[in-house]
């Protein structure tokens, strides 16, 4: 059976620049799957392919067995994502942004109001609930973006660098959040630069480099960062040899 989130030989280039090149990936329920890589490794492009934001040049990116480009609305009802910028319209208050996200995710009253208030409490946004998002600090905007992505309690969660702009307490919060989501049998795909954070929460760590999967890391192992650079270095050597 196909995993809820999967790619098969998926590839995408921008002009001459290959961003993702033949990636196979499977993320299952209850799993926290982390993707790590240097800047430009293809992590964000892979997530965009999975969310229907890009058309693959080759291969497939599927969510619940449907091609991401034409998945029905019933599939997206169960998906929450945060790619790069948070869902935070500067002219709307925190509460209004959350209501907007909830409405767009097909929630309706009275569940909508209860879920919005729950998200405000869970993401510790109560103090800023009636402030315009444009006046928030970067960290609180990120919290709002995460709350907007999760306000409808999705079963599939795709987060690109969710710890961006967060303070150490926020990073601990994210770690706990990811574990809670996976504990509720959600599918969690996350990219991150924080190896310590990944070591504590991820079930699977996939390493991407130059658009390809170049290996995986054992989250329980020691010195993740060193092993990551070893994989990247070996991939670079192989890439150089192939070019010659």
């Amino acid at each position, binding site marked *: 059976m196909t995993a809820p989130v999967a790619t098969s030989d998926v590839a995408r280039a921008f002009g001459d620049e290959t961003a993702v090149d033949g990636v196979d990936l499977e993320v299952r329920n209850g799993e926290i799957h982390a993707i790590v890589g240097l800047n430009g490794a293809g992590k964000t492009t892979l997530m965009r392919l999975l969310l229907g934001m890009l058309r693959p040049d080759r291969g497939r990116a599927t969510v619940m067995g449907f091609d991401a480009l034409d998945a029905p609305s019933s599939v997206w009802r169960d998906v929450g994502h945060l790619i790069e*910028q948070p869902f935070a*319209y500067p002219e709307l208050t925190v509460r*209004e942004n959350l209501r907007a996200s909830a409405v*767009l995710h*097909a929630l309706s009253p009275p569940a909508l109001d209860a879920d919005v208030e729950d998200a405000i409490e869970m993401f510790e946004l109560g103090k800023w609930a009636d402030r315009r998002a444009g006046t928030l600090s970067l960290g609180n905007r990120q919290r709002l973006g995460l709350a907007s992505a999760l306000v409808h309690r999705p079963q599939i969660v795709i987060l690109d660098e969710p710890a961006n702009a967060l303070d150490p307490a926020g990073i601990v919060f994210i770690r706990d959040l990811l574990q809670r989501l996976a504990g509720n049998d959600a599918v969690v795909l996350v990219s991150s630069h924080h190896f310590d954070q990944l070591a504590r929460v991820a079930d699977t760590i996939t390493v991407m480099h130059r658009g390809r999967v170049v290996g995986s890391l054992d989250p329980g192992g020691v010195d993740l960062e060193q092993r990551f650079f070893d994989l990247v270095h070996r991939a670079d050597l192989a890439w150089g040899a192939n070019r010659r």
Partner: protein
Amino acid sequence: MTASLRVEWWKLRRSRVVLVATALMGLLLPGMGLGFYSVALNGGTGGLAGKAGALLIGEGWVGYLGFVDQISAVALFLGSGVVVAWMFGREHADRTFPALFALPVSRGAIAGAKFVVLTVWLAALTLLVGLVALVLGLAAGVGPVDAALITELLRLLGIGITAGMLALTMGLVASIGRGYLAAIGAMSVIVAAAQVAVLFGTGGWFPFAVPGLLAIAGSEGAPELTAVQVALIPGLTMAGVWATIVWWRRAEVV
């Protein structure tokens, strides 16, 4: 589409761009019209009075609303165009565009909802300009409530509708340009091109010049405007709306 309509309405209602544009156009256009009319009536041949006098197309409501019409023909297109460009371009400028993917609501529905709330706003803006113009004119004693007033108010309504429809086409430019600056640049070029088209006597066939021609239609020396030429505007608008929705359905996050 109900969900996207609600969200787009919240965004429009809270926007400072929309608030400022509504206030400026609603108050300034009739105010400027009355100012020019007063200057023109008070005579003089030099400077502003001379220029205003040359543009005066009649007395009473015809003269006063004639000024409001001529100013509104350009200003309503530009001002409304800025709001339309903001509605579509801000998703790129504020980088909220990716958040509109992978939702139960399609991006085509979101673009459609933007057009619906913009159409309601444009209609309200046109009515506001007409109402303020009426109140200002009555307060200034421009003339009694008569048939000329009704005719000129209907002409102002026609200018508001046509300028507003043309402004909606800026949604496509802002979408393709992935920001509002492209549309603002396009509007500058369009206004200049409309002037040139009118100078060469072909303005009627250039839809963006039609609101300006409507403002002076029927006055001495004004070029004739045919129904076919006016009908080009809804055609162009519908094509623009359709193309914008198709763009939103097919666009990628790049």
